[in-house]
């Protein structure tokens, strides 16, 4: 580069008074900035958590009598019946994280153009790559971590409450022995990683559209996909595209877990996790390649973007 410091005639000041790039952390602060702006990242899961806990509280009325009846079933059905509210709570919170993540991404590169603040952000020494990656880190890293913490906390509180309810009838231990919080947390972490990797192209697509569309990002993200599906149906009377979308939304579990017959969707043993099978699914890698491409286009596109 031709920015050598001796090239500035007339400047009597020291050319670089001890400032160094390493003392700044553009990525870290950009992620914090996203959390300041989008409080829904943690507020929405917390609200859902409160609702779930309240629902559980109500459902524990008459629990000791029902628990007596459950304990007469065979062990597999006992686990299913006792663990069901915990699995349900986890699923609702994971679904919340997905919704928050998609809507966050649809707005991430749009709101800064809408409120013209992109002119301010671009006046700072932060590259488009850092900015877009910090935004992408929200659905890929921050939300899964937030939701993991909240789910574990919610399940722990549920366990405490059910123990308190069951204590007088001497059944308090029956939940802890059938719903192993630590093992379930490991399964939960695995599930979250599996789901976020599977959904990566969805988040990437939403980011891309949020940086591209001038308005109505949700419609721009969804309508073209619907249109392709409908056109395919009319033209060839097939629905491969729709099947592909459905697989992208819900397909992660098929390869990542080995479901036991007669046990429904409950995963209660580490042996049911099949990471090898999941990692060798071509769909995973195709999806990740698309996600990387979408994010790369979003980075490139932000260079050209100004206020709208």
């Amino acid at each position: 580069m031709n920015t050598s410091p001796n090239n500035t005639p007339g400047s009597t000041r020291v050319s670089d008074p001890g400032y160094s790039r390493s003392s700044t952390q553009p990525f870290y602060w950009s992620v914090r900035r996203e959390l300041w702006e989008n409080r829904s990242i943690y507020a929405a899961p917390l609200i859902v958590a409160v609702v779930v806990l309240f629902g559980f509280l109500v459902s524990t009325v008459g629990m000791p009598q029902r628990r007596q009846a459950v304990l007469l079933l065979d062990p597999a059905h006992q686990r299913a019946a006792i663990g069901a509210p915990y699995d349900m709570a986890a699923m609702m919170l994971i679904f919340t994280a997905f919704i928050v993540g998609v809507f966050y991404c649809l707005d991430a590169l749009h709101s800064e153009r809408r409120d013209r603040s992109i002119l301010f952000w671009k006046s700072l020494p932060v590259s488009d790559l850092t900015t877009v990656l910090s935004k992408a880190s929200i659905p890929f890293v921050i939300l899964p971590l937030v939701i993991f913490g909240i789910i574990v906390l919610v399940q722990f509180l549920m366990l405490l409450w059910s123990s308190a309810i069951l204590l007088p009838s001497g059944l308090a231990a029956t939940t802890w022995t059938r719903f192993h919080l630590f093992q379930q947390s490991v399964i939960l972490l695995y599930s979250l990683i599996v789901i976020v990797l599977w959904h990566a192209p969805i988040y990437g697509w939403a980011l891309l559209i949020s940086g591209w569309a001038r308005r109505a990002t949700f419609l721009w993200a969804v309508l073209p996909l619907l249109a392709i599906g409908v056109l395919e149906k009319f033209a060839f009377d097939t629905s491969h595209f729709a099947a592909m979308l459905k697989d992208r939304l819900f397909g992660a579990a098929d390869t990542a877990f080995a479901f036991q017959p007669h046990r429904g969707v409950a995963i209660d043993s580490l042996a049911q996790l099949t990471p090898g099978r999941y990692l060798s699914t071509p769909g995973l890698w195709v999806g990740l390649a698309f996600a990387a491409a979408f994010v790369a286009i979003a980075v490139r596109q932000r260079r050209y973007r100004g206020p709208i």
Partner: protein
Amino acid sequence: MATIEAGGLRKTFGTTVALDGIDLRVEEGRILGLIGPNGAGKTTALNAILGLTPYQGKLRVLGRDPWNERDQLMQDVSFIADVAVLPRWIRVTHLLDYVAGVHPRFDRTKAESFLAKTTIKRTSKVRELSKGMVAQLHLALVMAIDAKLLVLDEPTLGLDILYRKQFYDSLLNDYFDHSRTIVVTTHQVEEVQDVLTDLMFINRGRIVLECSMEEFDSRYVEVMVNPEHVATARALKPIHERPVFGRSVLLFDHVDRDQLAALGEVRRPSIADLFVAVMSNNANQPQPSHEVTAHQGTTAR
């Protein structure tokens, strides 16, 4: 090395030519005013300088290519676009945290001391501040950055007179020194007349006038001509004529001052008067037969 160096800078939007081959050289320590009518290409030129838009032609800012090196360039360049670009949702403390976290040349204590002179609360969100306070906040941030080039695009648009005056006063007293360079565009030409060191008029994507303020003061003279001398004065080819209280005020370029003093009251022209003169002449250029002062001359008695 000049702070800004452009050669044949060109930018088109479809068939509209926003910048039509601009050559520009801004040296360190100058305060350049870029003046032009709406749609003249001022903002496009600034956007190119700031790396916000791609362009054709040659452009170096502090030795860098702005389009490909925006993030490195922004360590040494600050930028205030019209007042409303600070994100409305952010808190003042968070804004300071963020800039301190990403900008290696930001001095937080300096920013805090500028803010201490205002009534801005640290806990306020930007949306709770008045327009004038947002401008003060942005200025406090920018003045705490040890930048080599400051670009201001209509920085005082929509502010009341007090804030506008204060804005340029702080900039000159607490920020500017001769190792910095400032480029400013504004429609409020009267308030920057005594601030600028250089003046540039831009119209339809071209530079139509370029001079230093010393040159401006020596070249241009305005004369309120005594009625009996109007014909003599017109013979000296004024670049513009306008009637004021029934008398003719003529603007001359490169005409001997003593000779003019004999014709009436000699004054320093304002940038606004010169701007009107240059722009109306510029507008008449496509019709060469049209005399320069004709349309104004007919309205004078």
